């Protein structure tokens, strides 16, 4: 009788999903950049952060990037994306989602997102996204963590944003890319949770896009000193 009872209860436990076989849900919040940018004639607060929840098979990621200028206080850029990530290879996830841009100046835009996110050879963290709308664009981001010591880390990064058609309302022209290059030196102060850093951030807009930016009375070539925190929870 005992055996039978135990067997039955084992079976019901199996059906109810055992602790070891249940698909576990994980979450995390990461801000690669959360910083003050101080350039020639421009001061801004900026962030680039991700939050995710999901399983090994599917992650839902909220990604937010923004630059909030302090001269006349306004969001120069404010992008929010909701991305679904599904593994497609050992090191890469396919991405699909939506992006919504809502800067204080200029029009708001909505895009569909298709992309790849993962770790390339030699530890380069790569994002390659295609943003689809009537004003499509492509973006390619690479980041590398260079360990000076196990806690002092130099992180160079490159982001290249390429409009595929003209969108004069946002000062962008087809194939007139915007390039952001950064170098940030951080120190893991509290575990990996809080890492203050200093660095430089260079933004350069090329081609016709550059001319549109200049026509707005802004600089198409800005070097900023940055100071901020990297966060991870």
């Amino acid at each position, binding site marked *: 009788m005992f*055996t039978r009872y*135990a*067997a039955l209860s084992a079976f019901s436990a199996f059906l109810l999903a*055992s602790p070891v076989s*249940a698909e576990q849900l994980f979450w995390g919040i990461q801000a690669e950049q959360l910083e003050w940018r101080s350039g020639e004639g421009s001061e801004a607060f900026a962030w680039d952060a991700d939050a995710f929840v999901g399983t090994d098979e599917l992650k839902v990621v909220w990604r937010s990037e923004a630059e909030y200028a302090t001269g006349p206080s306004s969001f120069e850029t404010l992008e929010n994306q909701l991305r679904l990530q599904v593994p497609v290879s050992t*090191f890469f996830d396919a991405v699909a989602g939506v992006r919504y841009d809502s800067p204080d100046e200029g029009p708001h835009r909505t895009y569909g997102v298709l992309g790849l996110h993962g770790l390339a050879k030699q530890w380069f963290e790569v994002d390659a996204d295609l943003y689809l709308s009537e004003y499509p664009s492509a973006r390619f981001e690479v980041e590398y963590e260079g*360990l000076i*010591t196990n806690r002092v880390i130099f992180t160079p990064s490159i982001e290249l944003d390429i409009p595929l058609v003209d969108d004069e309302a946002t000062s962008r022209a087809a194939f007139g890319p915007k390039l952001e290059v950064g170098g940030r030196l951080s120190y893991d102060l509290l575990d990996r949770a809080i890492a203050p850093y200093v660095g430089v951030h260079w933004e350069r807009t090329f081609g016709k896009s550059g001319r549109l930016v200049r026509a707005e009375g802004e600089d198409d070539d800005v070097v900023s000193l940055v100071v901020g925190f990297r966060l991870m929870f």
Partner: protein
Amino acid sequence: MTIGLLRRAFLLGAGLAAALSGAATAGEYSLTVDPVTVDTGAFTRSGIGYNGATPGPVLRFREGEDVTIRVTNNLSEPTSIHWHGLILPFEQDGVPGISYEGIAPGETFTYRFPIVQSGTYWFHSHTGFQEPDGAYGAIVIEPTKREPFRYDREYVVQLTDAHPHSGNRIMRNLKMMPDYYNRKQRTLFDFLRDTREQGFDAALSDRSAWGDMRMMPTDIEDLQGFTPLMNGKSSAQNWTGLFTPGERIRLRFINSSAMTYFDIRIPGLKMTVVQADGNNVLPVPVDEFRIAVAETYDILVQPKEDTPFAIFAESMGRTSSVRGTLATAEGQKGDIPDLRKPPLLTMADMGMAHEGMDHGAMSMAGGTHTMPDGSAMKGMDHSKMAMPVGAHTMPDGSTMKGMDHSTMDMGTSDPFYAPGSGLMPTAANGGKFLSYNDLRTQKPLYPHREATREIELRLTGNMERYMWSINGIKYADAEPIRLQYGERVRFKFVNETMMTHPMHLHGMWSILDTGKGKWNPVKHVVSVAPGTTLFMETEVDAPGQWAFHCHLSYHADSGMFRKVIVEGGPEGKAAALPVKTEG
């Protein structure tokens, strides 16, 4: 081997007779599962313990008795207790979802099973991350017969690895960033040093080879940041075992760590290994040994001087250690040796030398030694032994010196590591480091016979996603492994990862194939080094369903786990398997 059988038959008979007559010696035990505070000296955190403490009590059973253990769950979450290494009915094995449904908060579950073995074992929760959070204790089973060795006193030495983060938090961090807990990554300064030592090209090509794989040669322990404890005490808290000079002391080492392998030595004392995983082995004198997660080793030492001796356990990746003391008076402290230089994984550990690891056709550096009885000798690389003048030539053509084995560098030829492995252990004093190859069972539990079939289990994983699996499939997606009662299954483990995996089969013995036939050691955990293939055989003699998994907590939890179903069995012995209702 007949004796082994006879012994089993005798035990079974005795158990049966006792059960029928109702005259069995019966032990009654009770355990409470409690929230406790873990204080390592380095940090304090909340954890889980038994009878109000972590580690829990040492349960002392007698071979042949029927035990009744009442377990009361004082937690606000479900729990379970698994009796690690004990041979018992599957409903008593304590794995939620496989043996039973677990123990709900506030409930008392009564375990009842006969004790059919003797030796050193342990128990732990099999629910979530309660075990890494402190839910473990030791089991000592007195044999009915006299032990095949003499000792004057004994101590349980239970090693654990306390972490300031809870198990759940660790798992989440690993899923977010797999190298979250690796603080031994190679840095710019390491690169500059390598450039100086090996030249720029060599240093760069080494970096680029590892970078190609997106793996790290320093990633030995997977997780760092532990404070190892010995019987719940850190080095500073100094667990002490008292002795009188000249006494022979039995130390029952149990590695109840979540993730940490330890290299253990007692500077100044030779240790004689007498038991592994609860089964007596032919005694092996050693200077140092490595204990995989969830293994046990019993050793004898005989300190003759009136002086403290350090029991020193160093983590395999040399990131942490714990010292306890064998002392003649309280308050004495053994000297803490410096941590040795951390090893680096090599391409051999990445499986690049896989072909060389077939134990059946292993080529030795000096050529295989064919013995007079026609067997090939393994693990003894005579070519690397220093030969003094007057060396003797043996019948097999090898030469042999005056047999000072204590200074032979045996560690360099352990066939249970990939040739050229960075993990190949050597003794701190240059002496003898225990290898699986040295273990011979004292009592073969089963007649030696050909396996009836072979099952290949590739140990697989994706480090960047912190996913661990078997044959590329994690537990949640896997079919159970079905075995037939009465067969002898040969498991072939192929480790395709860069981690060392202590594989643990519940309910049945794991006969590790060291090429010694009936003398192969009988274990409950077999550690599979990276880049190696290892065989173990199991006599399928326990009906029911059982867990089979890597005993590294975070590997098991993320999917390196299987359910094993044993089908069939003699009339009245076959288990009422839930699988029958499933089908």
